């Protein structure tokens, strides 16, 4: 095994929570609002079913191959040649995702805070820090998540608490104006783009030390993400109403509303700082999955020599794949949806079915031989 570190189930849940919540916090409300309007708070709940499904599928696959990550067991399920191609497709997929995330991160900071700082400095510095964490392995990633999440969560809650005077509950009305359909359609983008990322759990399962709690904590982390998304959705909806659909980052707008005793104002930098912490865990997790997966795919003994090249390529890719933020959100809402659904739901499900029947066949063979 390339990775020798172990993390606890709690740490796994914390990594996943930040991985999904980081981008969902900023981008999710406006996307769901576009389709679900005032019923958008329902969409994350519908979409969470996808999260549970993925956690379950990957757990079943993990039970078949308990000591291997996804990249390692794909060839075992569908044969060496086809499996290697599939594994490569996944690596490529995560490469693009990492590029997108890096771009999103950089664009967000440039548009909101550091207008004059070059993009490559902002994204490069973050990637450098992530590379440092990836070098430490899964143990360091798990521990940093466990360090930051208990800081991020209360701060996030405090920010939302400070908003309470500005909330207007009538923004939720009329409820179910067009039935449940809008909220169901609104659930598709979070289903594919956000909950789909739970698929990264398949890279963590083999390194979780407490065996009994893996599935349980996976489900807890989905629940905590649902809860976070609900809070964000409600605060956006109750403050902005339908206008929220036209804001790129509603949460930052929300933070601008905070004013306490005429002294605590303009807390958006604090919100951004919190967000950067979660974003760091998200980027590190994907970066790690990509580095480790590549090493496993190439059957190397160590993934560390790959970290630096992959970082540079991701930085370059983040500039190449999309010319600007509009194209990025266009991609996520159209082609991307199908891409994400295919890679994170359909193929794993098919693989699980194949693995299940293979296992049965093997058992039959063994029984016959006996």
């Amino acid at each position: 095994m390339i990775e020798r570190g172990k993390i606890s189930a709690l740490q796994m849940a914390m990594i996943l929570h930040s991985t999904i919540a980081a981008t969902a916090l900023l981008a999710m409300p406006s996307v769901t609002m576009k389709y679900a309007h005032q019923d958008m708070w329902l969409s994350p709940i519908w979409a969470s079913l996808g999260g549970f499904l993925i956690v379950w599928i990957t757990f079943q696959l993990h039970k078949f191959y308990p000591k291997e990550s996804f990249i390692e067991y794909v060839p075992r399920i569908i044969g060496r040649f086809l499996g290697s191609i599939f594994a490569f497709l996944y690596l490529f997929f995560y490469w693009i995702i990492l590029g997108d995330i890096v771009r999103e991160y950089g664009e967000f900071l440039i548009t909101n805070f550091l207008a004059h700082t070059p993009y490559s400095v902002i994204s490069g510095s973050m990637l450098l820090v992530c590379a440092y964490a990836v070098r430490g392995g899964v143990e360091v990633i798990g521990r940093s998540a466990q360090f930051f999440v208990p800081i991020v969560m209360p701060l996030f809650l405090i920010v939302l608490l400070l908003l309470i005077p500005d909330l207007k509950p009538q923004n939720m009305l009329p409820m179910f104006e067009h039935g449940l359909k809008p909220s169901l359609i609104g659930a598709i983008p979070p289903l594919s783009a956000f909950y789909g990322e739970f698929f990264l759990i398949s890279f963590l399962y083999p390194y979780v030390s407490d065996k009994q709690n893996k599935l349980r904590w996976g489900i807890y982390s989905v629940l905590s993400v649902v809860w976070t998304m609900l809070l964000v959705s409600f605060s956006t909806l109750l403050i902005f109403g339908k206008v929220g659909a036209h804001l790129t980052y509603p949460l930052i707008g929300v933070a601008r509303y905070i004013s306490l005793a005429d002294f605590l104002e303009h807390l958006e930098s604090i919100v951004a700082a919190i967000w950067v912490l979660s974003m760091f865990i998200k980027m590190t997790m994907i970066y790690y999955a990509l580095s480790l997966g590549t090493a496993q795919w190439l059957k190397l003994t160590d993934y560390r020599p790959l970290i630096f090249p992959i970082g540079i390529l991701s930085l370059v890719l983040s500039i190449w794949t999309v010319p600007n933020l509009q194209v990025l959100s266009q991609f996520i809402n159209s082609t991307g949806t199908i891409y994400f659904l295919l890679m994170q739901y359909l193929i794993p499900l098919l693989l699980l079915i194949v693995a299940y029947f293979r296992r049965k066949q093997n058992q039959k063979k063994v029984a016959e031989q006996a």
Partner: protein
Amino acid sequence: MGFLKNWLSSKKRTKQLNEIAAQQNLTATLEENRSFLATIFKGCSDVVFHDFTIFGQISAVLIYIEGLVDKEKLDQNVLTPLLNKTGEPFSINTVSGVIPVSNIKELNYIEEIIDEISNGHPILLLDHQKKGISLGLTQLEHRAIEEPPAESVIRGPREGFTELLTINTSLLRRRIKSPQLKVKNIVVGRYTRTKIGVYYIEGIAEKSLIKEVMRRLDKIYMDGILGSGYIEELIEDQSNSLFPQILSTERPDVVVSYLLEGHVTILCDGNPVALVVPITLFSFLQSSEDYAQKFMIGSLIRWLRYISVAIVLLLPSTYVALLTYHQEMIPTSLLLTIAKSREQIPFPALFEALLMEITFEALREAGVRLPQQLGTAISIVGALVIGQAATAAGLVSSPMVMVVAITGVASFLLPHYPIGITLRILRFPIMFLAGMLGLLGIILGIIAIVIHLCSLRSFGVPYLTPIVPMVKQDLKDVLYRSPIWARNKRPHSTSKQNPIRQSPGQKPEAENEEELHSD
């Protein structure tokens, strides 16, 4: 192969250690032994060879180093009986029988004899004897036991370690009277032959930990060990880290509290600083004083210390970041005040901060090295340079002076010097990051530090335990200072095998209240 290599190198090592005298037996003739030792100690004018005749029959020689030996006792208890009594039947037993000295050892090898002489034990060699007698009449000059100035307390014992290992051991033994307190001695240093003591409590400390400590100490092989700093650097887990991974203290009570929690302590002869392993970051933020006060007060002081860590690390950089990038976060009236005071300042905030912080560090360092009488002079100069003159000259704004002063005060709150210096150094790179990327830079700096801390270990214990990885039962001594009656279990990381510290239900209850008030 590995063990063979180890075995070979250990062979080589003993050989080199005894370069002068290999495993050589004493011979039966006094003259031979005497001349052999005389050639070894040739040029050492402090080594005395005193020839005399025992019981008027046998010639003998007494060898000792002047200044390490209690001469008065040597004359009274050794020479007097041996010279005065005559006509007794001679044997080595009767000789040791007539000497009223409790610590007597018989030695066979030249090497042992050299060691004993060097350690200040007089050696008695007799003619026709293949054995020498070592007399425990050492008298080493030493400093009195005083309160360590760097770790003074308001309420607590005022004893500190001294330079003498035997005294330090007795200070520990006096506090832990159980025979479970074990001491292992090893000698390190080809020339200095420094004695190192390893202390632990059997049954509490993990065996694997003791073994690991001994393994790392055994690996040391060099000319000399001049202090516990040498040992610290040679046995710590990650040498190229700014963070101290071994706790150093001069207080026996601190050491005892760690010993009782299953830690191992290393003391080195000639140095009053004890090393405690393994250690976590939070040990550096605790003081023995916390336990001398009520637990609520102890907790509050501990929180104050945590805040001061944040201030030392982040205050100057946050100030720079706010002034340079995030002016909108400062309330308008405050912003106007700051702007007014900065009107005349020719430097950007980052440069101003660097200037002041470096001046402050320089003054502080100067104050440490200077004799006490000059220390006050430095503080006057410092107050003038840092405060009055710099602002009056229009080089530095007064809010910046305040920031530097608050940072300075916060850094004095840290109870252990090594962690303070680490944090003070780390605030400079974070200041640069803040100057380049604002709050984002500070966050990146924090992330990098946390990653580093997450990857650190001290003798197998993760550096951020019990926060990360979380150990619920140990959190009570980190998030706050738990009451002594609630600390039923020892820390999980150091004593898994023997976790029960005290029986539960120690919380004081006024059960006899009625009786007390009955009359």
